[in-house]
């Protein structure tokens, strides 16, 4: 296998993808690079274009404009070569419900053109490694959500791909399941795998990614290391919890002049981004006290990636929409992805 000697494993240049129904510009000129052996976190809300980017990079979808190169191989001109050097684990563990865990991995092994012997051996090895040895001979229907994700990732690793695409690998997992998967991803990277990770969880990007690219509405709106992104934001966040929601607007009017950016309100919590946390914190309390506004709590913290995201996009990372949740419940996963894209389109139009 002739790998490029370049230290960039994944390159995306000005990717554009327009979905004809609704004329949604899912990607509107997205560029980024992933250095070999590192994790790039592609961060953004639902419908930002993350999944579309991964689908293009993994040869599932062709871009309308721009190009993408994996280890020196163009995804449009050499899809067969690219497919031999990538692994893909999706947001919805795309495994066959009627097969056992072992059979699923063997199937992906065979379809990756490994010999029967190697596929069988890899299945045993990966099941063992992912703590699924006991469940290996059970059909997938009996697996928990966390087990399915692990199996999905195990199957993606069957041919030992040097480049791995993980599309929201932990969405919907419980904290333990998430921790387990994070551990696996860290091990893979330690062994030299290049990972492109999409996520809505800032904590996940913070923990795993060396570099972060923030996308929204199909465009890159920020990039850098987690530390750089946080540093851009100011030094501290003051979160004031008020006694009730009725007095929020009054509090915001009083506090806005003290902060560097417009205060962010979430129910009865008002957050201020400031340079000098402790000093401004004291001022906040004095101002509110003077106006007889009851304060239920006050916290001072370093900015999280959530704050970065909020300040960049003007909205919080969204939980899944009702349509998507309903679609997912009926098992209609493809529709859910489309709904997410449509959602983005709706917002663009608005």
């Amino acid at each position, binding site marked *: *296998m002739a790998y490029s000697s370049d230290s960039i494993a994944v390159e995306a240049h000005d990717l554009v993808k327009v979905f004809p129904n609704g004329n949604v510009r899912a990607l509107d000129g997205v560029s980024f690079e992933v250095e070999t052996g590192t994790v790039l976190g592609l961060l953004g809300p639902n419908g930002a274009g993350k999944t579309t980017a991964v689908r293009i990079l993994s040869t599932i979808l062709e871009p309308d404009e721009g190009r993408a190169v994996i280890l020196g191989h163009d995804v449009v001109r050499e899809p067969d070569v690219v497919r031999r050097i990538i692994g893909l684990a999706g947001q919805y563990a795309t495994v066959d419900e009627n097969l056992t865990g072992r*059979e699923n991995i063997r199937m992906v092994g065979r379809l990756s*053109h490994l010999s029967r012997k190697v596929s069988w051996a890899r299945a045993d090895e990966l099941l063992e490694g992912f703590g699924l040895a006991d469940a290996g001979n059970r059909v997938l229907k009996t697996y928990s959500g966390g087990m399915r994700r692990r199996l999905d990732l195990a199957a993606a690793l069957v041919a*030992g791909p040097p480049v791995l695409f993980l599309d929201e690998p932990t969405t919907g997992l419980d904290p333990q399941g998430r921790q387990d998967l994070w551990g696996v991803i860290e091990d893979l990277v330690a*062994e030299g795998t290049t990972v492109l990770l999409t996520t809505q969880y800032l904590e996940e990007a913070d923990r795993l990614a060396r570099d972060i690219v923030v996308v929204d509405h199909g465009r890159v709106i920020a990039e850098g290391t987690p530390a750089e992104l946080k540093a851009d934001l100011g030094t501290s966040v003051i979160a004031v919890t008020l006694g009730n929601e009725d007095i929020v607007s009054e509090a915001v009017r009083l506090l806005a002049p003290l902060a560097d950016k417009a205060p962010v309100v979430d129910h009865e919590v008002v957050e201020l981004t400031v340079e000098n946390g402790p000093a401004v914190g004291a001022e906040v309390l004095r101002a509110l006290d003077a106006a007889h506004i009851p304060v239920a709590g006050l916290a001072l913290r370093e900015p999280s990636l959530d704050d970065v995201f909020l300040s960049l996009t003007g909205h919080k990372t969204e939980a899944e929409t009702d349509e998507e949740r309903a679609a997912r419940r009926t098992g209609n996963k*493809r*529709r859910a992805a489309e709904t997410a894209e449509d959602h983005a389109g709706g917002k663009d139009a608005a």
Partner: protein
Amino acid sequence: MTTIALPRTAVERPAPQAGNRMGWAVQDALTVTWRNLLGLVRTPETVFFSAVQPIMFVLLFTFVFGGAIHIPGVPYVDYLMPGIYVQTVTFGAMYTAVGLAEDLQKGLIERFRALPMARSAVLAGRTTADLVRNVFTVLIITAVGFAVGFRIGTDIGLFLCGVLMVLLFSYTVCWSFAFVGLTAPNAETAQLMVFPILFPFVFASSAFVPVSVMPGWLQAFAKHQPVTQVVDAARSLMTGGSLHDSTAIWQALAWCAGILVVMVPLAVHKYRQVA
């Protein structure tokens, strides 16, 4: 909860097996066939009920309607059985449509797209698995048919040719419904689409009664549609005698070839579009 220790060889890339493009296309189709057949075995209730329906039709037409239908020269059960074979494998195409619609809906086909497997394997594997399923269905119907008095009117060789005729037709119907399955918005709709499409072909045919008893306008359709031709061909090979019709055999083969020539490229085109 288990802790995860990754195999140390995870990124040590196993060498892919050598092989040429054609060899791999066949191998990939077989892998997908194997996967589809396992799915069938794992849902025995599906297999059970898909076998029960034709059995019920055999019993219904032999013991309930059969007494009212008089076919000159042959016992009704001998007239009926070739029709039952064709009816069963035709409606069985539902599995092709539903199976593909489900794979599409669940994102499995998308995963396949990111693997170095042959593009043709999903459709080839689906239709091959359905052909294997139809072989089992035909065996069950044969057993039930003999139990209720069906006898081969020709000889075993011609009877087996009749079975091959039925299986060939089943294969063409599967390809047609591969296209339907890929067109359907979801598996539920795919399932609902099958019956209305097939109903006129199966029931306005010579499968259960001679076309000559139908009103003229219906005869015009019934005489010249593939199910009638294939049923007549199967009858000619299985029962023979006064039902022998060698023209029907050639016409049935021509229909099968024609349907394949049209539907295989259509299904492949649709697959490339949606997947």
